[in-house]
């Protein structure tokens, strides 16, 4: 094996990002590394490239144990990486980017002519002939991507990691990139290919490894695996039977919907869809990364402007063109990346909980300190937030408890429709079940919830209805007993499968 990873582990405060992961890469192989967000792909890659130091496990390159402390060291050892975006410097010329750190010099000065000649030579191997003395930023993403690959191969030459290389390329550019990757494979490089485009994975790769929740799920030859099985590996379904509870028994059927969205859509983002939300209902939104799940939520909450459609309740039309209006209409939204968009890490638990409520009241009508403390204590108790005090900065809590604080903030607003985007992302498995329990708790009062999740178990366990999103379209809707992991996976995997179910 060119590269062997044995029981690699990496922990961050509050999360186990990788737990005992094994991974093998042969020379002359393209190996896909798959998994949803938070599965541990990027952590694994960062451990390989020296951006993170691993906590446990070993990495063998050509049989030698390695422990790169920096990207430069990993490069020197032979591991080169091409990231989706931040790779090279757009403000330097193509030639400078290609030779950076190994510029040909004469009398201590960079020899520009030799530098350009070297750069042209490197690109010629990939059949590219461009003006290398121009800024890299002047060229298309595809060219930049190839320049990055050329540099990585030149500097490293054993292992090439491609992290979502095709995300911003068009079809012709992807083709060009693939032919280059195949050529490099023939030259004996080991290539790790990270992508969420399954078609590309099947077209290009020799083997597939799937990660989920920081664990390796499976490694198989690409030709032995089919799309359906792959998706179920990625989304997980082992707990299916155990997780299913009496949820459906408490469900209210036949009531008039509380909210109705009609023909809501945004050109190029998501096709128009209809959505009815009943009182106390939990609606799941299933689909792969990039399928249009988050976009659906953003459209409803007014984060993105809709190009068509309208929302109604029993009193008539409601405006939700921006988050402010959506909040006024009684909507709530906990975004996917709570570290960036959700919590204010430096503020205390109390301050985070009252943040939105205070914002709605306006700064002229401050909540009294006693009232703030009452609210904070109430939700700390209700949601069982584990904190030593309401005054502790939220950043010091574990991921699960941070998520509960975000939840508490919205509950304090008493919304009628709460959107939860990946509420269990990056939190301990134990806390998963608790968040799900809380969702059931809060819907008893009549609040409706839209739950976006990559975890099938979670959707199956918590939802009254599941809408499946694929290729930026709502393609299927499942309810009651038809909510099973298999049905969801089928709907996600097969374009033709939609007809098996009622279209949404």
């Amino acid at each position, binding site marked *: 094996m060119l590269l062997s990873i044995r029981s690699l582990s990496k922990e961050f405060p509050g999360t186990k990002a990788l737990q005992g992961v094994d991974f093998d890469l042969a020379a002359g192989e393209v190996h896909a590394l798959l998994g949803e967000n938070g599965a541990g792909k990027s952590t694994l890659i960062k451990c390989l490239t020296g951006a993170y130091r691993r906590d446990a496990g070993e990495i063998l390159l050509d049989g030698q144990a390695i422990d790169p402390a920096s990207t430069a060291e990993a490069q020197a050892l032979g591991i080169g990486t091409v990231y989706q975006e931040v790779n090279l*410097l757009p403000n330097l010329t193509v030639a*400078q980017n290609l030779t950076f750190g190994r510029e040909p010099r004469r009398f201590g000065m960079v020899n520009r002519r030799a530098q350009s000649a070297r750069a042209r030579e490197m690109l010629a191997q990939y059949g590219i002939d461009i003006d290398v003395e*121009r*800024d890299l930023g002047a060229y*298309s993403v595809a060219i930049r991507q190839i320049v990055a690959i050329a540099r990585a191969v030149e500097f490293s030459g054993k292992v090439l990691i491609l992290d979502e290389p095709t995300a911003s390329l068009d079809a012709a550019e992807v083709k060009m990139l693939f032919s280059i990757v195949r050529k490099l494979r023939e030259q004996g490089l080991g290539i790790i290919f990270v992508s969420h485009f399954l078609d590309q994975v099947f077209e290009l790769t020799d083997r597939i490894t799937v990660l989920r929740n920081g664990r390796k799920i499976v490694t198989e030859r690409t030709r032995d695996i089919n799309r359906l099985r792959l998706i179920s590996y990625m989304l997980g379904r082992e707990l299916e039977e155990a997780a299913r509870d009496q949820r459906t028994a408490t469900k209210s059927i036949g009531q008039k919907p509380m909210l109705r969205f009609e023909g809501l859509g945004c050109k190029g983002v998501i096709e128009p869809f209809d959505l009815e939300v009943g009182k106390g209902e939990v609606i799941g939104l299933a689909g792969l990364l990039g399928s249009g799940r988050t976009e659906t939520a953003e459209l409803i909450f007014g984060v993105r402007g809709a190009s068509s459609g309208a929302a109604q309740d029993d009193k008539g039309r409601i405006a939700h063109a921006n988050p402010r209006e959506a909040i006024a209409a009684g909507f709530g939204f906990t975004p996917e990346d709570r570290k960036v968009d959700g919590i204010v890490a430096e503020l205390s638990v109390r301050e985070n909980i009252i943040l939105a409520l205070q914002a709605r009241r306006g700064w002229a009508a401050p909540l009294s300190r006693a009232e703030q403390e009452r609210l904070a204590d109430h939700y700390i108790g209700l949601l069982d937030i584990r904190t030593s005090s309401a005054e502790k900065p939220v950043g010091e809590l574990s991921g699960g408890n941070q998520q509960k604080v975000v939840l508490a903030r919205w509950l304090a607003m008493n919304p009628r429709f709460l959107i939860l985007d990946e509420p269990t992302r990056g939190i301990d498995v134990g806390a998963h079940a608790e968040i799900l329990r809380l969702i059931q708790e809060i819907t008893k009062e009549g609040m409706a919830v839209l739950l976006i999740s990559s975890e099938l178990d979670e959707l199956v366990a918590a939802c009254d209805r599941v809408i499946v999103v694929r290729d930026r379209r709502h393609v299927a809707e499942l309810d009651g007993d038809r909510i099973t992991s298999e049905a969801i996976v089928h709907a996600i995997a097969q374009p033709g499968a939609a007809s098996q179910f009622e279209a949404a």
Partner: protein
Amino acid sequence: MSLNPRLYPLLATIGIFLVGYLISYLQFPAMLSTRVVGNLLTDNAYLGIVAVGMTIVILSGGIDLSVGSVIAFSGVFIAVMLRETSLHPLAVFALLLIITTAFGAAMGWLIHFLAMPAFIVTLAGMFLARGVAYMMTIDSVAISHPFYSMLTSAYWLMPGKGRLTLIGVLMLISVLIGAIIAHRTRFGASVFAIGGGEQTARLMGVNVGRTTVLIYAFSGLMAGLSGIVFSIYTGSGYPLATVGTELTAIAAVVIGGTILTGGAGYVIGTLFGVLTMGLIQTYIVFDGTLSSWWTKIVIGLLLLVFILLQKGLLRLTAFGEAGS
């Protein structure tokens, strides 16, 4: 092959300088003499030298507010040392350059290793250097060393009786060396890399810490050299001298076409930035009726024009990307 867009700001700077010179010449034909050119270089020598250091700092996306105070400190240090000790001026120069370079390096170290904003660190450096200058003396100290008289009167007579002074030449050499460092060395490439994106620079193998320390050390060295030149130019050391020179240097760098956020620009552009500002002053002197505050007004307008030009250029390149 079309023109590389990265050259536009530089060409604009040179163009503005030439147009300005042409206008001045049409109004006052005497402007086109080697005397004026010689004075332009001499009068702006200290500014040009410190602006070279500032260019490197700004190319890396940083800022150095301490240089004006460091120049004043240098003048005072030289004057006091020559008065109090029997050291030869050259020995004092060497000592001074070591001190200012170490001072810059220390600021660079704080900026990188304590992850503090350059603005605050060099602001502290600005007060510190000015304070130390006051500690040494509160008066203007004249320098009366025979070697100094020699330096002051060292010039080469150009055809047309213009004087190309030693300090003017020193500035041109500084610009040349600065240009070579910025555009022809690995260190220079690292400076541009950090200015383009520190995270990416690190991924490409730049030793960011070492480079940052060197950048501010270089700026300190240039400020010290500028202080020497300023003391030769004025023949004295005064702790209240060159207040605000750091801002004038930043203005020269920006008018010279370097982008304030770092990562793009030319050292030679800074020379033209300095000369353009000097040209405005010369014009006002020639005119005789204008208040010298017009210098500030025109510099302000020029800065505005260049900031707008940079914005426009960014948008232009963004469109270029979308089109390709």
